[in-house]
């Protein structure tokens, strides 16, 4: 059975299902992270004292990780643009970078986590650390999800380019929208946790 409206737009929404589906998913994600940011605000304004991020966190490492994620967002959008230009080889190169950069991000994050654990800076240590672990770990899970999806579109999934070109472009666009959202979350997490 052919799944309808994967390429052509639905008459009622004016969108194909891929695009509408990913935006609805992202809306739910905004509320998920919004709930955590809201909890952060509640806990912080209600706290008698709040530690400075630098007491527990390494600002240069956080800055490097921010730049890495921004770079991966750039390579993602360049991969999509390459598909639109019909340059499959460039797409593969940019997509590979989009997969490897967040792997580097996770390695650095892993080092940060290891440092925290070795200093006994666990979630039970303080409210600040509890919210730091919760938010960065949830974000990390999203990063892993993005690596898996983008890795699939770089590897086995890319065969679709030769069979159903437009459908493949739509899928990469949806994966890209998700990936930019993950970058967007970090853009807010970084100053909130590390700098303020």
């Amino acid at each position: 059975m052919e799944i309808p409206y994967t390429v052509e737009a639905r008459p009622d929404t004016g969108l194909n299902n891929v695009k509408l589906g990913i935006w609805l998913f992202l809306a739910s994600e905004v509320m998920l992270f919004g709930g955590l940011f809201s909890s952060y605000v509640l806990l912080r304004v209600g706290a008698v004292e709040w530690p400075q991020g630098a007491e527990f966190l390494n600002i240069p490492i956080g800055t490097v990780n921010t730049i890495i994620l921004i770079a991966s967002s750039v390579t993602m959008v360049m991969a999509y643009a390459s598909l639109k230009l019909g340059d499959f080889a460039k797409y593969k190169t940019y997509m590979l970078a989009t997969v490897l950069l967040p792997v580097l991000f996770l390695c650095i994050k892993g080092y940060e986590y290891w440092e925290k654990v070795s200093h006994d800076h666990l979630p039970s240590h303080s409210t600040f650390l509890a919210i730091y672990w919760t938010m960065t770990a949830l974000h990390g899970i999203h990063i892993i999800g993005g690596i898996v999806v983008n890795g699939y579109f770089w590897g086995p999934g890319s065969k679709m380019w030769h069979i159903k070109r437009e459908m493949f472009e739509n899928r990469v666009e949806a994966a890209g929208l998700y990936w930019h959202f993950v970058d967007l979350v970090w853009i807010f997490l970084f100053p909130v946790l590390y700098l303020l």
Partner: protein
Amino acid sequence: MSGSAEEVRKHIATYKKVAGALGVFTIVTVLASYLNVPIPLGITIALVIALTKGSLVASFFMHLSEERSKAIIWTLGLTVVFWFVLMLLPLFTMSDHIGVHKTLPNANAATEHAEEAH
């Protein structure tokens, strides 16, 4: 993104500019955290920069600046409304505590380290 190869190339030029701006804003965010300013102002500066960066990503990388679909605009509009409700509720309940601390925590870091050394 839609259109001819020429339009896609124009988009690519925009992506490069946005990438540069995001890099610069990241550095500015870090430097701004060391400013000796009252906490509410420091938080405002950091969030304004983060909002600017977020808008750049959403507008150009996610192509929202050229999105004309009513379904997407309504979905995101409703999301923004509910997001603000989520963010404002705790602020309303705790508004009498906001701004208790006088300066950004990082602003005193250098002084504190110097005092510890003595």
